[in-house]
């Protein structure tokens, strides 16, 4: 799913298995039910704001996230 800059999303669930990187993303605070906002996009990465942290993540990781726009 393409995430648009400036929009906010809620994570519904993690899909398609688990990888070390997804574990790291979970430990960085992204959990089912959490809301985040897409601040920027640059090449292969998104910059999101999650609670009080700013996380840069690969677009390929986003494929594993089932989100809904809020």
């Amino acid at each position, binding site marked *: 799913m393409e995430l648009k800059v400036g929009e906010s999303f809620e994570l519904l669930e993690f899909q398609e298995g688990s990888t070390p990187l997804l574990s790291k993303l979970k430990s960085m*605070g992204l959990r089912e039910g959490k809301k985040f906002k897409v601040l920027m996009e640059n090449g292969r990465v998104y910059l999101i704001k999650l609670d009080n942290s700013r996380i840069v993540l690969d677009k390929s990781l986003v494929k594993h996230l089932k989100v809904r726009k809020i």
Partner: protein
Amino acid sequence: MKKITVAVVGNPNVGKTTLLNAVAGTSLKVGNWPGVTVEKKEALVKFGDYEIYLVDLPGIYTLEPISEDEKIAIDFLKNEKVDVILNILDATNLERSLLLTAELLPFKKPTLLVLNLLDEAEKLGIEVSEEKLSELLRVKVVKTVASKGIGTKEVLPAIIETYEKKLIPFVGKEVPKELSEDQKFAIAHGIYEEVVKKKKHVERDLTDLIDYIVLHPVLGVFIFVAIIFLLFKIAFDFSSPFVDWIEGFFKDFLIPAVISVLSFFNAPEIVSRFFAEAVVGGVGFVLTFIPLIFVLYFLITFLEMSGYVPRVAFLFDKYLHKFGLHGKGVIPLILALGCNVPAIVATKTLESWKEKLLVIAMIPFISCPARLVVFSFFALVFFPEYPALVITGLYLFGILVAFLTALILKKTALKGSISHFLIELPPYRFPSLRTVLNISWIHVKDFIYRAGTLIFVASIFIWVLLNFPPGVSSPKDSFAGKIGEALVPIFKPMGIDDWQATTSIIPAFLAREIVLSSMGVIYSAEGNLQKKSTENFQFLEAIKEQGKGLALAVKSAFTSLFSLSLQTFEVEEGEESLRSLIKQSFDKASALAFMVFILIYTSCLGTYATMGREIGYKLATLFLAYSFFLAWALGTITYNLFK
């Protein structure tokens, strides 16, 4: 004295280094974890009847073995005799910090919680009750603002108390050896809800506002270029007056003074010259590196701790990705323009061993000021109509060779895709200057110990080569001259066929810029190695001169900051006598070939020693050989193309 081992655990950017610096001060040591290239910080502090050994584990979000960082942490906690865990929490991201705390519970070790970044929490309207936190986990909690030294004095006494009373965290029921994801989230969330109150909602803070500009795809690049320009300007223009002063101090004061004293005791000339020129001179030579290296590390550490560095990775990943490199590689590559040594150390932020090796293999081809000194001289002598063009061409050629090396390695020995991008951008922070100073000083000490000792020994060795057999008066008859003559056939294909040029290359292995001063000595009129007479050396006069010189150096350092141009890079004219002598030995084509050789061959002990430490001496030596053959081949091709 009882020794307590304390493992310092926490998320990245939570302030572990700043706290450790505030608690341990100058006893902080930086090294590498054995077998890997992850930085290890440790400190041994005496407090009361105890010797507290603090080990800073890499910043991690979880103990799940995702990368080297987590494996190091798990291994240390499981296998080393850890007496106390010092768990540092981020008050602005407490729920997340507590996830790690939950994962630490099964270890059943006495734990001290430090709640850091309280000032930032307050700005965000977050209030944390440390009493409640302490009550829920049954351990001590210390509140700190480590960057300002607030609360840090309570940490050591709290560690002792935690140890003596065996304060093991307990959440009300027995925790299983392996916590499931849901269990650890439940623990973290439960504690968070009880302990944190949010007084106000802050949608956008200062960091977000700054990021709109700094991370802008176009503006951000301009800001980056400006910051890099400032970095180099401050580093070079501020340090070079001190470098010049140190050189002068040794050449005009210390060395003549030592010769004076030794000859007073009737020491044979060769002995007094050995002690003065080789030993004392060797020390002086190592010291000339320090001002630049210190200032560079200071500025780089400042930038790192301010939060700017990961943002550069975000900005440039788009471009570097096309070359099969991670965005994080841009900082070491840019730093290489200033000096290859801190650039190699900066690759520690790259996650995979392959990526690190890749960037380290690129760095030595990126030209640095030492090479610029040589290029400036030769370009002015042989290409007076367009020296800047030649120099720029050489710089670009070096960058080209760097990227080509990376591409070849990516297709062969270092095959594999780039690691994914998943990093946190910390908020912008003004770093604690004490911490930055201390960390910079630690890096300088490391440089002196590693590269410095190697450079010192090598410079003595080279002095011996140039001044032996004893009584030799012309460089041609010295051991170095004989070696230089033997090297001529190797350099002939590059158009270089006199022993003076090849002999000058030998000392240049210490540091490239020496090739010029060696040429100065070796080419000069009578090839006279004897130094000027020290009969007229007046101790008091000389000290006064040095004092005046130092004051001037300090003034020069500060005033240079106010001019907009990069004064160090301003091309100097060079000695008239050497210019005319060089013209007899080189022509345009061989001069160009020589510059290409100096550009490509890793003729720098500092770089070699640093590479050896980061990737092992076997690989470093292999790379050295590669750069020599490549330099020779490219130099030969250059000569034949342009002759």
